[in-house]
């Protein structure tokens, strides 16, 4: 009964919408972050529409081995005669899938467990937090490689590993938001109204956590791309002949004495992608902090 | 009584008394905003000059500017600070570093924060001794211990090995005093030394400062917003308001017969002034950048008239013998002062 009245006019919702507007306007003022967002827009577009863009990552042009940029091949060819630009675009797609898989696991497990643990508190929270601490004690890439060793090579397996490594970070962010939210007045009111824990978590606690979680997600995207590149470089990620930026760097490095050029395009693309993710994360974090500080 | 317009930098006292420190027309800007405006005063040998004002009046900035310690973003725009035949404003950084701590020393409002938490207090005091007296480590330590016990800190030798967080506020101030006096300076600048301390501790520190002054023939520039403390400690008083010096005279004249409404208002708001007469000055002090033209106190002044805001700047005039006031109406007003 009280739930209906809460939905009709919710002062929290008004406050949240006003806050959201402030976040947006602060963010929109940050030019660097906007550029980073634009860069990601391009990546996502390329990733989704790759097949229709005429990219041919696996076609061999027998007339052009290890050539530099030309009219036919805008970014040159690799040692097997494949078009570099096409392979970079195909790599976008691989990374999109990678990010979705890894973050799907990390956020899909980390956020609900974190919210629940932070909200419930007590020994449950202590125990779960300890588990997260233990996972964080392993150096990230070493743990990821270990898991890939167990599961076997392949993109999905590698991303499961990366996802596991990232889960504690999402857990911590969600947990600290839940800890703060549990003390808020409207949560106590909801409890008094008799809402179920699940409802409270979804309707009231989760929105409070959305900001920091979004920031963590953005930083994690950068991390996943870097990890995928590292694993790909080592040959533990995508299987050949599929193109990924990391494996392209490895292939370029293999022939570095013959051609200094080949490693450059994929390296630059990885640097741009990771930097853009971090800059975007910084912009979001600043925007969110400015809105929360002004709320008081 | 004729009100003669005295030159802005005219010395208050001519004659045999020696002026150790002479500040003339000191002006300090912070990023283009004026914070201290044309302040002049003298510190006589063996005497205490009090610099009074609310927070925002510019008194602390003035004190620091004397030693060239203006915070980042600030600069001394005009004026001079004469000390020992030198103008400190034009001194080199090297010269200033020689003078600081050795000839002119300063103690601060929050003594705990002015001490480095990572080093023993003994090390910190001894460091000043080594710097300015050229003493070796052991000698400097002994000298520092000696000073610490002079500041009435019990078991000085043991306490030299303690860290600042192990001292109370009052004791930290004694430590600061020891550090200030270790090189036997001639001038002590005390920037609100007791404001952050308990009332009971306050009295003892003030007493200590008075004793030191007599023992060492020290000249003290005492900065405070507390008129009660000023009355106790000072021979001469200068009142600051909104970057300006608005009144300057001997302590008896200031308290007995003030010539500026702001001084009167400050006296009125002293809690001792009888029960039921708790009088707060209405309005607030204008911040740097918001100073009105004409008399800056006019908006809050009980005696203000339109002509007070007329001139671009109100001049500092000699309202009485050796008594300067920056008030358009000073000749007409008869302010009652306090006992």
């Amino acid at each position, binding site marked *: 009964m009280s739930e209906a009245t809460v939905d009709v006019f919710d002062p929290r919702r008004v406050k949240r919408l006003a806050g959201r507007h402030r976040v947006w306007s602060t963010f929109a003022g940050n030019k660097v972050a906007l550029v980073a967002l634009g860069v990601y827009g391009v990546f996502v577009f390329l990733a989704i529409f790759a097949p229709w863009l005429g990219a041919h990552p696996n076609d061999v042009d027998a007339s052009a081995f290890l050539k530099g940029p030309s009219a036919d091949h805008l970014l040159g060819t690799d040692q097997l005669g494949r078009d570099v630009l096409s392979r970079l675009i195909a790599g976008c797609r691989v990374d999109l899938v990678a990010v979705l898989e890894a973050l799907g696991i990390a956020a899909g497990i980390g956020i609900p467990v974190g919210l629940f643990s932070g909200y419930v508190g007590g020994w449950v929270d202590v125990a779960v937090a*300890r588990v997260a*601490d*233990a*996972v964080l*004690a*392993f*150096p*990230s*890439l*070493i*743990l990821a*490689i*270990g*898991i*890939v*060793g*167990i*599961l*076997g*090579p392949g993109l999905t397996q590698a991303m499961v590993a990366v996802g596991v490594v990232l889960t504690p970070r999402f857990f911590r962010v969600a947990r600290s938001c839940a800890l703060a939210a549990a003390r808020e007045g409207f949560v106590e009111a909801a409890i008094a109204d008799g809402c179920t824990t699940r409802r409270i978590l979804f309707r009231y606690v989760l929105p409070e956590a959305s900001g920091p979680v979004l920031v963590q997600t953005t930083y994690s995207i*950068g991390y996943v791309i870097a990890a995928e*590149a*590292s694993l790909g*470089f*080592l040959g*533990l990620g995508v299987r050949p002949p599929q193109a990924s930026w990391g494996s392209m*760097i490895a292939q*370029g490095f293999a022939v*570095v004495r013959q051609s*200094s050029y080949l*490693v450059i395009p994929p*390296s630059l693309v*990885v*640097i741009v992608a*990771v*930097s853009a*993710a*971090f800059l975007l994360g910084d912009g979001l974090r600043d925007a969110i902090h400015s809105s929360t500080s002004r709320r008081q | 009584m004729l009100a003669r317009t005295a030159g802005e930098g005219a010395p208050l006292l001519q004659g045999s008394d020696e002026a150790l420190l002479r500040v003339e027309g000191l002006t300090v800007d912070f990023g283009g905003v004026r914070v201290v405006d044309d302040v002049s005063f003298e510190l006589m040998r063996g005497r205490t000059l009090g610099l009074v004002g609310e927070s925002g009046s510019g008194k602390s900035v003035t004190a620091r500017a004397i030693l060239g*310690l203006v915070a980042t973003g600030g600069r001394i725009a005009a004026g001079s600070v004469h000390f020992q035949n030198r103008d400190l404003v034009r001194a080199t950084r090297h010269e*200033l*570093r*020689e003078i*600081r*701590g050795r000839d002119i*020393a300063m103690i*601060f409002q*929050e003594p705990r*924060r*002015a*001490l*480095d*938490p*990572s080093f023993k207090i003994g090390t910190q005091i001894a*460091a*000043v001794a080594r*710097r*300015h007296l050229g003493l070796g480590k052991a000698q400097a330590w002994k000298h520092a211990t000696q000073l610490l016990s002079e500041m009435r800190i019990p078991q000085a030798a043991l306490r030299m090995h303690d*860290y600042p967080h192990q001292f109370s506020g009052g004791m930290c101030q004694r430590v*600061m005093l020891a550090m*200030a006096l270790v090189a036997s300076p001639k001038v002590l600048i005390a920037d609100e030394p007791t404001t952050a301390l308990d009332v009971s501790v306050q009295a003892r520190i003030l007493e200590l400062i008075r004793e030191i002054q007599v023992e060492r023939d020290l000249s003290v520039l005492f900065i405070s917003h507390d008129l009660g403390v000023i009355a106790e400690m000072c021979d001469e008083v200068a009142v600051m308001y909104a970057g300006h010096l608005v009144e300057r005279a001997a302590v008896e004249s200031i308290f007995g017969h003030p010539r500026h409404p702001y001084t009167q208002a400050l006296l009125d708001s002293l809690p001792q002034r009888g029960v039921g007469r708790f009088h707060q000055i209405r309005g607030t002090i204008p911040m740097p950048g918001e100073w009105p033209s004409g008399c800056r106190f006019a908006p809050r002044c009980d005696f203000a008239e339109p002509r007070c805001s007329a001139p671009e700047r109100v001049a500092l005039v000699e309202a009485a013998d050796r008594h300067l006031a920056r008030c358009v109406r000073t000749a007409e007003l008869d302010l009652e002062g306090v006992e």
Partner: protein
Amino acid sequence: MLRASVRRIVSIVPTLVLVVFMSFILQAATPGDAARIIAGPLGSETEIARIRDELDLNKPLVVQFGDYIWRIVHGNLGVSALTGIRVTKTIFDAIPVTMSLVLVALSFALILALTGGVLAALRRNTWVDRVITGTAAVGLAVPAFITGVLLVLVVAVQLRWLPATGYAYLSDGFWPWLSHLILPGLALSLVSASELTRFVRSSFVDTLDRDYIRAAEAYGLSALTVVGGRAAKNAAAPVLTVFGLQVGRLLSSAVVVEGLFSIPGFGTLAFQSAINRDIPLIQGVVLVAAGFVMLMNLLTDLLYPVLNPRLRD
């Protein structure tokens, strides 16, 4: 202070147990039959059965875990499925190599961060500061192996100043040892150097603004004493904590960098164990790595009060 230290040491025990458990569980998490994978594609059925017996894979999980802990306490990390050599030996042979690399990398990182960070702090908001801070921001985003690749490209291939790959043992001479570590060390250090630079800068800026630094200036203490002695000691404590946390990241990056430069260290070992699906070796590697990181964190925590006297009581 002693009591707090003991408490801190004791607090890692539950986490340590969990870490050991997680290393153990890797084996159980293997999709398919662990014994079959260990035996490899050429393993016969008898071989597989033998392995299963040796590793007690038939016993209940709890018993296996107990045995596992017992073995570890005795320093027995099992035997490599591929080479048959004891895991402990393989790891300990590889560690000095990686330690050399990490040492060189940390030195580079410290040197770069201290000079860059302090310079940026002293020349706050000038172009010097902006260049340094900007470089650090970019440096954070470049994965270590890419730095390595570019360094090899420029320095080894184009300029031929330093060897591109390989590792020389210290016993072969100091310069060969060092020259092989310069490029990989530099590559490894860049991300840490970037993070440390930002941290050193902010810690210094923070300290320089403190009242006690102003007070020291008021007493005529020279700039060198103030910045070098006082400010440094106060800024050091927070920098130390961040420094201690770099070890985990360096170990991770070392995996790829060692692979890139063909350095036979712990990172390469980790990589090979994964490629070969050598489960006992993977378990050993993962456990030792985590243990080492926990040790470094512990040391950093214990060292903190030494630099910050306020925490001593």
